């Protein structure tokens, strides 16, 4: 037997959001992709159909995941068949973050984020005048 059991007595999470994942138990593989385009505007304004991901370099860059083919003979000896954790206290699991309790074969994660800020030039001029 090369994998151990995980034992967690207490989990306390306040928030799981923006494609965060909490996985309890065994899993064969986790593959997760997430694109985020965050447009901050000085004033509340939403057009709805703007800025498709394909227009931005940040999103069409592919991750260079190498195939895993290493010729290694791995042997494990576990003194204790259990991983014991008394408590987990987490504020948030978000933006493609993963909390996994249990065993798994592989985890592949991709997260791409682009921030854009739009400020009004009118406001800035007003500020300058006030400072003077």
């Amino acid at each position, binding site marked *: 037997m090369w994998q151990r059991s995980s034992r967690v007595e207490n989990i306390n999470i306040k928030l799981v959001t923006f494609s965060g994942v909490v996985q309890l138990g065994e899993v064969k593989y986790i593959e997760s992709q997430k694109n985020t385009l965050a447009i901050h505007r000085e004033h509340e304004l939403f057009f709805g159909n703007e800025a498709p991901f394909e227009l931005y370099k940040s999103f069409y860059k592919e991750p260079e995941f190498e195939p895993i083919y290493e010729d290694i003979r791995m042997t494990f000896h576990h003194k204790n068949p259990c991983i014991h954790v008394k*408590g987990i206290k987490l504020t948030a699991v978000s933006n493609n973050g993963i*909390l*996994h309790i249990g065993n798994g074969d592989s985890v592949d994660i991709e997260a791409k984020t682009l921030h854009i800020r739009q400020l009004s030039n009118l406001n800035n001029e007003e500020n300058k005048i006030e400072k003077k």
Partner: protein
Amino acid sequence: MMDFHVTNENICVNEIKMTSVALGSVLKIGDTQSIQMFSTFDTPPESLIIGPFAQVATGTAAHGGAGAGAGGLHRGGV
């Protein structure tokens, strides 16, 4: 062929306190064979647009207006 032997002693953790697991990160309690992660966070200079609030970009109309501010990010001829 390489021989790789690991002896794991007891693991007993009292408490894990974290603020957040975010942006393509993993907190894992257990065994796994492989983990591959990829994360980018981009805030290029072109991403600060000062001017009238026009749409950032829509489909093929990538240029003109405030959209030109983000022109450096656009793939040519899309």
